[in-house]
């Protein structure tokens, strides 16, 4: 893949993973509360998938960083730091999953 495209992908993946975890967790909680369909394992799997995607993006970012120009390298660093913060976010979401229960 073209290096610029790969960089954009690395920038977009962590935030997408975090958002997907949030939305899916919300959806699964609604499913459990309003439809009585509880899929507890699914929500944890979502967390795991989000973590893997984010860490993956981080690793790729580090790999390509040295081949980029000044601007690209800067974007890569910012994106890597952002991914680290979003990892915290995904972990916080998992904590909510583990410790906040119930519907109303």
């Amino acid at each position: 893949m073209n290096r610029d495209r790969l960089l954009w992908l690395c920038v977009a993946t962590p935030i997408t993973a975090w958002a997907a975890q949030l939305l899916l967790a919300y959806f699964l909680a609604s499913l459990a509360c309003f439809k009585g369909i509880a899929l507890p394992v699914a929500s944890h799997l979502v967390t795991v998938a989000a973590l893997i995607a984010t860490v993956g993006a981080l690793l790729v970012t580090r790999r390509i960083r040295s081949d980029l120009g000044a601007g690209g390298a800067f974007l890569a660093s910012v994106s890597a730091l952002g991914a680290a913060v979003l990892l915290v976010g995904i972990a916080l979401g998992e904590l909510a999953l583990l410790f906040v229960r119930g519907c109303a």
Partner: protein
Amino acid sequence: MRLAADAGVPSLVRGLERVWESAHDEAGWVTTTDHKKIGARYIATAFVFFILGGIEALVMRAQLALPGQALVDPATYDGLFTMHGTTMIFLFATPMLSGFGNYLVPLMIGARDMAFPRLNAFGYWVFVLAGLLMYLSFPASSLPQNGWFAYTPLSGPAYSPESGIDFWSLGLIFLGIATTVGGINFIVTIAKLRAPGMSVDRMPLFVWNILVTAIAMVFAIPSLTVAAALLELDRYIGTHFYDPAGGGNPLLWQHLFWIFGHPDVYIIFMPAAGMVSSILPVFVRRPIVGYPALVLASVLTIAIGFGVWAHHMFAVGLPVQALGFFSAASMLIAIPAGLQMAAWIATIWAGRALWSTAFLFAVGFIVLFLLGGLTGVMLGALPFDWQVTDSYFVVAHFHYVLFGGMVFPLFGAFYYWFPKMSGRLLDERLGVANFVTMFVGFNLAFFPMHIAGMLGMPRRVYTYPGGSALDALNLLSTAGSFLIAVSVVIFIANWAWASRRGHVAGADPWASNTLEWATASPPPVYNFDRIPMVRSRDPLWDKRTPRTASEPADLATSRRQTFGTSPIEARAETYLRMPMDSLAPALAAAALFVLFAGLLLKFLVVVALGAVLVIAAVVLWLWPTREVRGAHLPIDDAPRAIEPGRAPGWWGVALLVGTDATMFVALLASYFYLGFAANASWPPPEIERPKLLMPLIGSALLLGSSAPIAWAERAIARGDRTRLLIGLVVGWLMSAAFLTVQGFEYLQKTFAPQTNAYGSLFFTITSFHGLHVVSALVLVAVLVARGLRGQFSRDRHLAVQNVALWWHFVGGAWVAIFAALYLSAQVLR
């Protein structure tokens, strides 16, 4: 580094003036596309709305000064807080910051205008007319009374039969057009027009923040537009989106509104933070500390900001576990906010401060925003929120964030950039008086509200019983509000005085770091006679001899042009030709006004007239002007392209596709959201399952039509005009056939939009898509007309590429609709 018009090049300067000047008459006033004029108009108009919103606030505070007063009746009070909130958010804060962005971004990035100058003018006219439309509710004595977030069912037809809310929601849909095109324009300008060498790590932070703000605009506004449009449909034709009796759900409004509404907080805050990041380093005389951290904070805040909307809905009965996630996300957003604060404070710490007025306002902002942030974190905690939601605690919180977070930086920005815009300095002694009265007045007005809220005073009440601590707290608040008014009057006096008598500023009165100070004050129409080469983050503090990018003078003086550069590294790619002044933007905005006024009056003839006028204005707009076709100008756009990338026009259409796709996503999400709440099946049992044969034929036609269009595009890329025309016509016919099939399907339906929420969704989604098909048909018709006149060639056919992109998007959107409305129904029903 100094680049201001130097004496050696008088002929260059005269040539640039000749191509960039607008006509000096009334016509020139309307047709100008100069970003500086447009920016200044945005600022002035938004300031008028600030005064109006401020007067509304003062009337409310006068009413609340003492318990049990009857200065205004309850209904008027409701109208006042609704108009105040709406005005401050939509007609003051957002456009004011767009005005600064408009004025400053091209100067800061070393460009001669915005990427789409005519779109820029259009955005301004739409903003003015939309504001006018909303304010017509005063003479019509029909104020909206539902608060700035207009919750259903209160705002629905059953409980608000009067027309007030129609002024509000039609006005917001109309205004959304301005904000969206503004956002697109900022993104493309910043991505493509930066001076050579200004790679993303050298962009001024103000520009970074305008960029993330613009992205938030492009993807948040669609949700509001959809919310307001569905509300109007409920009110006008009796659909059931928000009506539980018909299978709708009032919470759908809350979701759609806050998916827009929380990012909107950052749309307001981010540019203001960018102002602070511009002002601080100049007045502590050192580069900003933690530039990467500040960029990171901006990007993250906007991104996370899209995922926390439900924290406005903690009290509506969402599943507790879901509240847990949204609470967690709301806490997460404190990380970038903290980073930002740390960087600002470190910058002040590390430098030596010059206590000018601009700097005072920036520091005042930091103090107030810290307080607002703290109460925000408190509200992010569920149990606390449940306690004080809808009380004056919340009013105090969001004024600390909005007023402290936006108005203080704004006044700092006035003092800092007024010299650039007018050539004269504001008076510093009046400035200090301005700051002190505002800071004291603000805290006097809003700090007591925290306490009033915790004592149980609800927001949005027109009075309260006397004999408690609330009496004194409210009186203090009112006194503070009037002190703020005094402060604003001081500012206006300073402005009026300085415009005529202020000290002459010179190009760079503050010894600043960024490019807007490299040109004269006020800047010449063409901004820069030679475009600077950027070699560092603070180009004006760069000790090296300044360099300029090479640009043939004959080309620069024969047409409006600026540099086109690559998005990340800002390598020079091409010289971009910019359009001349035009009446089309103002006409298009006026035509839209007719359309919306017709909707408001429920006058179908006027609506139809407006629609025809809009189409006419768009055709006029897209028709190439004489200057472009004439032989005295180089025809092709990229004759000396160094490394061609996508043209700005293509980027613009791609972003338009993005914002439109977001609208489809919002509509389809609404479809499944209401379907989820329905008990048994979706579509509901009384509606038959959609048949597939006709829709499949239609889909084949629509998707198939992309082939001849793509074929036509490839033909013209080889210079084949005949095949271009054949492909366009064939695609047009196939797509028109799709519409016919769709029409037949409508006729066969046994239900209507009024039947139930399912019917409402089905017809709204498909006809919204149908409108897109019609728009694509109109555009291709224009292409055919232009093609017949031989206006396209191998090197000049950007319009074909852009329309083709739009065409494929319309087909792609249909795939999603088909999957949702037709295929999912086979399973869920």
